[in-house]
């Protein structure tokens, strides 16, 4: 094509089109487009039933503020993935929901989060108004990066009062041996002793977190996550695995637990319909069951702490679970003052009352005064007592590690319970995790 022809303009136009489309596809430039919106800050939260409270807080805030807060929600399962992809773009939220711990580690490493030291210095209540064991979970390298914004979710051992009574078990087991004893009695009564949503894998992980904590104390996991992977091969680690193996092999979870899920209503229905005696689950078990079977929630559902393991190093009052959810602030936010003022709402009385009304248990020090207003005051008091008295509150393993570790942890616990890997296989899997 060595002569000018009518095609040249067509080619040129196409070239320009292609070029411009390619540029547009690369996510825009970094000049004019990076201006964050004027007079508004975006708050991104996990989309679920608790959004009512978040909306109420936003409304309250917008009544008096010139900078308006816009609430964006992303449905649960998608949340972490959407957040990760949006965080380093111009569409990043000014304030966002997270789980503290490992869930914000990558963001801190990428220098995207605002340290909250200055805010706390100006207003110490941003720290002091919250229970310390909970507040500390969103602290990375001694710097606070988050403020608690929902309810705490310790994992507890729930039971069906009627099933336990009919199997001749008088009260919830206080020790591991009593638990094993109860398992035998329930088996004899023809029940699945413990309901387990093994198909979801994270409920299986709860058993590991607790047994490890009771046997070895919280130090073992802390060392592991700090990078000392040798601890997985320690005596305590093998002892914990041995106890778990014994529990599975004795038939405590029945034989089909790998096909049962919590998320589709499988495991908690086993408990509430009287087919199983126990279920180890986060404190949301109560509201979940209340949703589908309010009668059972009100009179048939019992709860207790995870049993003590005799001779173990861990304090029997230690807790495992999701300590709380947190709001973290983007370093590049255009209106840091507005963000700070919004965070202040998280220790207000209105916030606590609103959370209690939907069954959540906020972790402010003022919560205690509102316990009587809860849906079930007994349950709220028990739970608050656990959290307040816990010497250590271990964040769920999969939240304590950065998200990259989750599939490995989940596969390892599921494979170990299924018997497809042994102690050595589990240790090897956990040792492969990088900090």
């Amino acid at each position, binding site marked *: 094509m060595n002569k000018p022809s009518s095609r040249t303009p067509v080619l040129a136009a196409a070239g320009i089109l292609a070029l411009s489309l390619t540029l547009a596809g690369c996510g825009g430039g970094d000049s004019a487009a990076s201006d964050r919106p004027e007079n508004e800050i975006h708050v991104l939260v996990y989309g679920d039933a608790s959004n009512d409270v978040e909306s109420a807080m936003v409304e309250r805030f917008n009544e008096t503020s010139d900078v308006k807060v816009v609430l964006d929600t992303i449905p649960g399962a998608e949340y972490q993935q959407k957040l990760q992809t949006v965080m380093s773009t111009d569409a990043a939220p000014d304030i966002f929901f997270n789980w503290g711990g490992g869930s914000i580690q990558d963001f801190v490493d*990428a220098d995207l989060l605002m340290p909250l030291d200055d805010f706390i210095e100006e207003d110490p209540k941003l720290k002091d108004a919250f229970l310390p064991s909970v507040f500390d979970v969103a602290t990375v390298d001694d710097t606070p990066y988050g403020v608690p914004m929902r309810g705490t979710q310790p994992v507890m051992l729930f039971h069906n009062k009627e099933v336990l009574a009919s199997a001749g078990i008088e009260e919830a087991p206080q020790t591991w041996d009593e638990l094993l004893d109860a398992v035998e009695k329930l088996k004899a009564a023809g029940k699945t002793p413990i309901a387990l949503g093994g198909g979801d894998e994270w409920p299986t992980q709860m058993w590991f977190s607790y047994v490890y904590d009771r046997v070895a104390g919280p130090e073992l996991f802390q060392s592991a996550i700090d990078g000392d992977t040798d601890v997985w091969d320690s005596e305590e680690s093998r002892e914990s695995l041995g106890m778990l193996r014994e529990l599975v092999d004795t038939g405590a979870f029945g034989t*089909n637990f790998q096909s049962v899920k919590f998320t589709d209503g499988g495991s908690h229905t086993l408990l509430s319909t009287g087919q199983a005696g126990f279920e180890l689950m986060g404190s949301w078990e109560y509201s979940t069951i209340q949703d589908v079977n309010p009668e059972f929630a009100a009179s048939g559902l019992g709860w207790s702490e995870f049993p003590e393991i005799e001779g173990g190093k861990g304090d029997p009052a230690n807790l495992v679970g999701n300590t709380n959810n947190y709001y973290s602030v983007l370093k590049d936010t255009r209106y840091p003052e507005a963000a700070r003022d919004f965070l202040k709402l998280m220790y207000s009385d209105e916030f606590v009352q609103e959370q209690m009304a939907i069954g959540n248990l906020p972790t402010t020090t003022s919560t205690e005064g509102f316990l009587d207003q809860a849906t079930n005051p007994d349950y709220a008091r028990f739970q608050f007592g656990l959290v307040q008295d816990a010497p250590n509150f271990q964040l769920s393993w999969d939240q304590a590690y950065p998200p*990259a570790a989750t*599939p490995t942890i989940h596969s390892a616990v*599921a494979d170990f319970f299924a018997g*497809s890997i042994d102690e050595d296989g589990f240790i090897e899997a956990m040792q492969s995790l990088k900090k």
Partner: protein
Amino acid sequence: MTTLLPPRPPAAPDNPAKGRPVRAGRARLNRPGVAWTLPATVFFLLFAVVPLIAVVVLSFMTWTGLGDPKFVGTENWETLAGDSVMLKSLWLSVLFIVLGVATQTPVSILLGVWAAGPQRNRAVLSAIFFLPLLLSSAAISVLWRALLDPNFGVPAQLKWLFGDGNLFGNQSTAIGVIIFVGMWQFTPFHTLIYQGAAKSVPPVLYQAAEIDGAGRVRQFFSITLPQLRNSIITSVILMVVGGLTTFETVLILTNGGPGTDTTITAFYMYEEAFRRYNFGMGSAIALVLVVVATAISLIMVKVSGYDKMRSTMEGV
């Protein structure tokens, strides 16, 4: 692709007046000009080639989705080469394809030939039978997950058949469930292909066979099946490509589990990229998938003679 474009307008022929020799072929065929392929080419470059190049580049980098990707050379590829889950996932993908083709093809041929028949009730029955095609894979997977729940689903009622109902807890039964659900979902689609093909078989062939005294079974094997040859190849290629990219069924039914026992390559790619935020590794897995899929498609096209599109009508 060019065949879909309108013929070149006569208003813009190459002007041979400048004395340059005109190549014979060009003048004779009056092919459409290159400019007509531009829109398609641009979009192909933009949405297929550019991303593919980006994926190749990304496979030599480490990136969590935050900040800038970091170049790490062949690290991802070395990790992948020694990764037992990757090998297992490829083996599982192949197994899924083989089982998928083996279960869906015979059933859809029989159903398709049956549905091509003339009676009215068949039309009604076929319409009902095609219903799974209208549902999304996600909906279908959720439905079957609930139906096969060990304590509240079908297995609880049919204990003699399902035992303890631990279908999702063993590798073999979990694979079986995924294959079954895939079959339930896609057999109607392939049936549709075979129904169309079977309808276009010239009736004169059957009339001749009847005169020669061939029974229905003989007619099926000697006339129908050979006439469906090209449709079988089309259908199998679609199954293979679809099988390689099966994803949502696995995600919802088994989540790649128990452990990693149903982690096929497409799911593994998702897990690496969007659960571990290891986009470099995810890209490397994606490339393996692209290479394997292309190779399988090419081999199938060559071996089957599909590229020559030999007519099934020859000899008529």
